[in-house]
């Protein structure tokens, strides 16, 4: 009669039912954790690696970021009178190497992560969309 065992009491399932019931009733430290995304956004950490931003005054257009980019995402293009990087976000790995290698510390990554767009062309962020001016921001 080996098939009669204590499993028949279904003790484990009852234990599990109690745990799930505790979650239904929010007993103990079991809160609802989801975030209602489009209406409510999570706080982005200061180090978050999102869309790039280039300091207009600091950047010297040296192209070190272009050389070091693993995926050939960055190109140096002419903007007004100076040379600035242009980032193809559709190819970007968001690895942060361009930020690390920048000798002038002009490149940084912002907390902007909502980068979905309707066409591949609009994913190419030229200097006009990347540049920021530290002086003005002050």
């Amino acid at each position, binding site marked *: 009669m080996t098939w009669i065992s204590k*499993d028949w009491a*279904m*003790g*484990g*399932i009852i*234990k*599990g039912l*109690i*745990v*799930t019931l505790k979650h239904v009733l929010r007993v103990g*430290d079991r809160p609802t*954790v989801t975030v209602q995304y489009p209406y409510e956004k999570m706080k*982005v*950490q*200061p*180090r*978050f*690696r999102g869309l790039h931003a280039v300091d207009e005054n600091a950047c010297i257009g040296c192209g*070190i970021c272009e050389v*070091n*980019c*693993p995926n050939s995402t960055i190109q140096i293009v002419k903007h007004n009178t100076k040379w600035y990087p242009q980032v193809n976000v559709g190819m970007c*790995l*968001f*690895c*942060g*190497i361009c*930020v*690390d*290698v920048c*000798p*002038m*510390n002009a490149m*940084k*990554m912002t907390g902007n992560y909502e980068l979905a767009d309707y066409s591949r062309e609009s994913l190419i962020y030229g200097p006009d969309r990347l540049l920021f001016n530290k002086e003005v921001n002050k």
Partner: protein
Amino acid sequence: MESDELIINMGPVHPSTHGVLRFKLRMDGESIKECTPVIGYLHRGTEKIGEMKTYLQFIPYTDRLDYISAFPNNYAFVKAVEELAGIEVPIRAEYIRVLTMELNRIVNHLVAIGSLLMDLGAATMIMWGFRERENALQLFEMLCGARMTFNYIKPGGVREDIPEGFMPKLNEFLKDMEKRIVDYEQLINGNEIFHMRMKNIGVINAKDAVNFGWTGPTLRGSGVDYDLRKYEPYSIYPDLDFKVCVRNEGDSFARFIVRIDEMKESLHILRQVVDNMPVSKVISSAEYGIAPMTGTPTAVSTYFPRIFTPPAGEVYSRIEAPKGELGFYVVSDGTTKPYRVKIRSPSFCNLTAIPSLVKGLKIGDLIAAFGTIDVVLGDVDR
């Protein structure tokens, strides 16, 4: 009694093949007569990419191998490069590396257990697992700015030091996690239906498991007391106190329990790391023979050499990643790019055994056995 054979294509788009794995199944009714995994749908040629990128540029690509647990991938490659170039690593950097890797082991096992339970039809566990994973991912985001693809561990150290407010949050996570694991155990461990599905299913003995090249929790579930952290120690693991979780049954249930136990051990390791975290710099720079550039802005706390060339040579270095033994075979010819990078991915080698593991079982058992092997297709196909 035999009926007509039914050939079923399970995947590459299927709810429980964890990505783009495809099984060609020859079925006799509900029983599997033959199972042939077909892989390669996610092949991105990472090894070829490795030959074309510099050592630093290749690190982001290692993130994308096993994207559930990317820190060990970073570390495995960096360790190979460091061994090749003979780079000393500051002690604090090693502590941070172990911290991230053990945290990542917890994350990986949460996902593994969650997706296993979801494949078995209990969707609750994956949500609970993702709840805790989210906390860990926020810690990662705090530490290195990314949630899954970190590019954090660099030759000679780590990218940035621990930010302010990280340690209290980590302690909170550890405390939280302890309670949660009790919840998981109550939900799953004693569940009779779960026992029915897992016990004596997909049994593999120690000898066969070794022969198939199994590593990691899958091997330890078969009773082989083997953990690279213990028996071929690297980083600061010799200084840490932890035990290797082994079960002798060799069935799906044993592999599951090993993962739960390993999460507890990882928590134990993390607590030691937090308590003993030394103070030093987090990246060595002088070892490369390149002096840091003067006048370097200080927003990024340390200086990375953009290009460095390890001496010519070859190295096979491996670590205990959450899924098993992750090895990088790096051949350098003395230039800025590796001559050859070979990745020994645990998922690929563990998946080898699937055809003989599930032969004669039911289609539901294939799911269960496959879930306990815990593969990530980015790691299988590379």
